[in-house]
């Protein structure tokens, strides 16, 4: 498809830098050398993922393509690109910011929704993001209850976090807007593909998608940086 460069946003990148308070900057220094992609673990398993292209689009203002892409959500956050970058661009921070931007446009909520329980149930209730409850039955079968192992090692059956600490992080959550943010995530209704019938599928293609559900508009994301090759595995 022919892309119209005058549809890109000339001002976006210039304006967002001060908003991010210097937390992310320097993308304009990019040489397009490709050192980041060459060592990228995500690029090694996702053929279309490419940090170099995302930076390129951001600097040139084609944020529509960045925000609506599946690729934006494939980053491993390993910081290998930052470690090797000849001009010191901290790419993972850009991904972090761009994901927030994508969420404001209604992309990627299905990923974030899966993670919400870690914040709401574990972090805010127990003060610990990883809960002692094991969700994988195979692991329990193999290893048994973690509380027993803690006890055998001479520690209390459960790591204690004081009530005061939990009250404090809950207050931080309320004050900083985290609670509201999470409510928004909880309010998203997602399309359940497992319940899909051929009939719905037909509709899915012909009818206007994405649709508005709850408070947040949810969209499907696109493989904007090239449809992945390599057969069904890469869908």
């Amino acid at each position, binding site marked *: 498809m022919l892309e119209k460069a005058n549809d890109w946003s000339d001002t976006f990148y210039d304006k967002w830098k001060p908003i991010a308070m210097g937390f992310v900057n320097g993308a304009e220094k990019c040489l397009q050398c490709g050192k980041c992609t060459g060592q990228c673990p995500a690029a090694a398993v996702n053929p279309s993922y490419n940090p170099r292209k995302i930076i390129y689009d951001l600097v040139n203002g084609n944020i529509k393509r960045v925000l609506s892409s599946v690729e934006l959500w494939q980053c491993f956050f390993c910081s290998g690109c930052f470690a090797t970058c000849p001009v010191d661009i901290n790419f993972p921070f850009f991904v972090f910011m761009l994901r927030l931007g994508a969420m404001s*446009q209604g992309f990627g909520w299905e990923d974030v929704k899966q993670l919400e329980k870690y914040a709401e149930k574990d972090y805010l209730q127990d003060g610990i993001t990883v809960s002692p409850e094991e969700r994988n039955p195979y692991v329990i079968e193999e290893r048994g209850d973690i509380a027993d192992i803690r006890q055998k090692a001479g520690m209390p059956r459960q790591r204690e976090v004081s009530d005061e600490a939990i009250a404090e992080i809950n207050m931080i959550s309320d004050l900083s807007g985290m609670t509201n943010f999470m409510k928004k995530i909880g309010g998203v209704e997602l399309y359940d593909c497992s319940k899909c019938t051929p009939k719905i599928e037909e509709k899915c293609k012909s009818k206007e998608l994405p649709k508005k559900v709850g408070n947040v508009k949810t969209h499907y994301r696109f493989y904007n940086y090239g449809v992945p090759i390599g057969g069904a595995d890469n869908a």
Partner: protein
Amino acid sequence: MDEKYKDGYVEKNYMEAFDGSGEEIGEEVLNYFEELFSLEMPLGRMMKMMPGMFKYAKRGKKYRKNLMNFAPEMMPMMKDAIKDAVGLGNKEERGV
């Protein structure tokens, strides 16, 4: 490959997933960022903080004491916030 990524769908390319031009979308995202990262204390934000402070205070005497100690610091901020709310509209003046 998953149905939703097949040719038919991808053809309805990312351009159509957005309502506005790149410039408009950029502005939208920037406004969102501004709200998300703002450090100012407008009245609306103060009001949002109230339930959190009540919840915190309800937990016990010690928590209330922490809050009471903080009250003198809070009054000038409240005043500022109300002043801002009265002079709504000009963001630059508020030092965003």
